[in-house]
């Protein structure tokens, strides 16, 4: 069996890639993609911890389900906000959305 640490390293790498995406991308949709990567790396962690821990305790799996359900709700609101910004400004590039100082 693949050792647990491999999963953890993979999840940490995914989380870091997501974080890098959030910090380096200028397009709001791309930033959102980065956030999704971060949240999904958490799911890998949770599933791995569940599988390598006490398999009869469902907390890990339940948590993973809750995480992606909530992430979906969050994205729904986020995309609505992005569309609303796009309609009035014709851009979703974060650098150009700078009426107020960052």
């Amino acid at each position, binding site marked *: 069996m693949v050792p647990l640490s491999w999963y953890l390293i993979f999840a940490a790498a995914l989380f870091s890639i997501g974080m890098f995406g959030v910090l380096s991308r200028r397009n*709001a949709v791309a*930033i959102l993609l980065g956030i999704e990567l971060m949240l999904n790396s958490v799911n890998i*962690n949770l599933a791995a911890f569940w599988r390598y821990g*006490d398999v009869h305790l469902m907390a890990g799996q339940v*948590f993973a389900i809750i995480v992606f359900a909530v992430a979906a709700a*969050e994205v729904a609101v986020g995309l609505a*906000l992005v569309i609303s*910004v796009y309609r009035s400004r014709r851009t979703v590039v974060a650098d150009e959305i700078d009426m107020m100082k*960052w």
Partner: protein
Amino acid sequence: MNLTSQDYQVLAPYILLTAWACVLLLVDLFIPKERKSVTALLAALGLAVTLGVTLSQVGIEQVGFFNMAALDGFSTFVNALLLVSGILGIALAHGYVKRMGIERGEYYTLLLFSVSGMMLMAQATDLIIVFIALELLSIPLYVLAAFARPQLSSEEAGMKYFLLGAFATGFVVYGTALVFGATGTTSLAGIVAAAASPSTSTLLLTIGAALVLVGFGFKVAAVPFHMWTPDVYQGAPTAVTAFMASGAKIAGFAALLRVFATAFPALAVDMTAVLWALAALTMIVGNVIAISQTDIKRMLAYSSIAHAGYILMAFVPYGNPAVRDVSIAAGLFYLVAYAFTNFGAWGVVIALEKKEEKGLAIADYAGLGRKHPLLAAAMTVFMLSLVGLPPTLGLVGKVYLFRAVIAGGFTGLAIIGVLTSLISAYYYLRVVVTMYMKEGEPETVRETWLSLTTALTAIVTVVFSLLPQSLFEWASTAVLKLF
């Protein structure tokens, strides 16, 4: 695995408020556009009824839903404060949204959902529930921040708040997953038990706790995770900002308190230094940058960052059982003081704000003392309270805080607190000076609920400062039962 009435009793206020919000969402459809005040009234009524239920639960202590939620003195105290904040938030918003032409019934429903998330946060004793509550309080706030769309600044505020809030959520949930991995459980009580056993990986647990701290640092706007605050507070409709500044902060600190003080006492050695640095940085940066602000909303935003620093001070000695209770009680007391002062100050801002974001410069307050003496007097009270000068709640709160921190042996931090308060006197009193010493013709609006809220918060700020002991005792009993 059956739920009993005891379980429902634990979450009774939360269930009631959520159900009320769902029903209100439907009822609102049948309320004609020009009569949305009815929705506001119904929402406030829901909060008031829930407040009644919460107050009837004072003294009850039990856990429910398989140890996932708790009803104790702490949750009752925080819930009562949150519900009062909700009511004040609606009172401030009622006339404001109408005047700004953004009156929609969903405003009040979203506010109710947000309050219910905050309440769940105060009651959560399981990290999964903490996460759900965090999202339930944040998502409505993202929408509320962008509520004045298509006004550009409000949309921008909503999007920035969403992007950084979701980013922070990523940290919280990743940290939670690591804590789960280290301890094999998400329940706070289980984490304490597991942390004591030598087989638990301290490394995973520490990294997990640190990531959770980063996430909550974003939520409560602690430096260096504060970048979003000024923009969001400035861009969001002022009534939303008022609610967000107190409600989200109270809930964030409540969760931080519950999670750190009850679940991670074993990590206090590492965390104390981190919290010390966070508190000091937050106080210094918040107060120093606030000096150069000319926009009142932005200034109050930096002031709210600075106050997050003061409240964070209460967490620094959390690993020391001798002073833990008194310092956390001081933190709770400060949250009450901050909530009332904050609502009052934003109320005055709303009274002077005009359409298209006019009337928001500090210079616009010139002459207020002559033209509207009562409003100026109220604003003076709030500014004094924010600095921490007598005779206000802000002073008492700071005295309790500094005393607790010094008792915990962190005299250096208390000195930084006092010095930064001195710095803050400069920009708060500048508002007072502008109101009384400069000539000007400020125009204000008269709205019954707005005036009532401002008057009420001003009175509370002054009167409670004269008899703070009872409030502090309530906060202390709330904390004592936490452990």
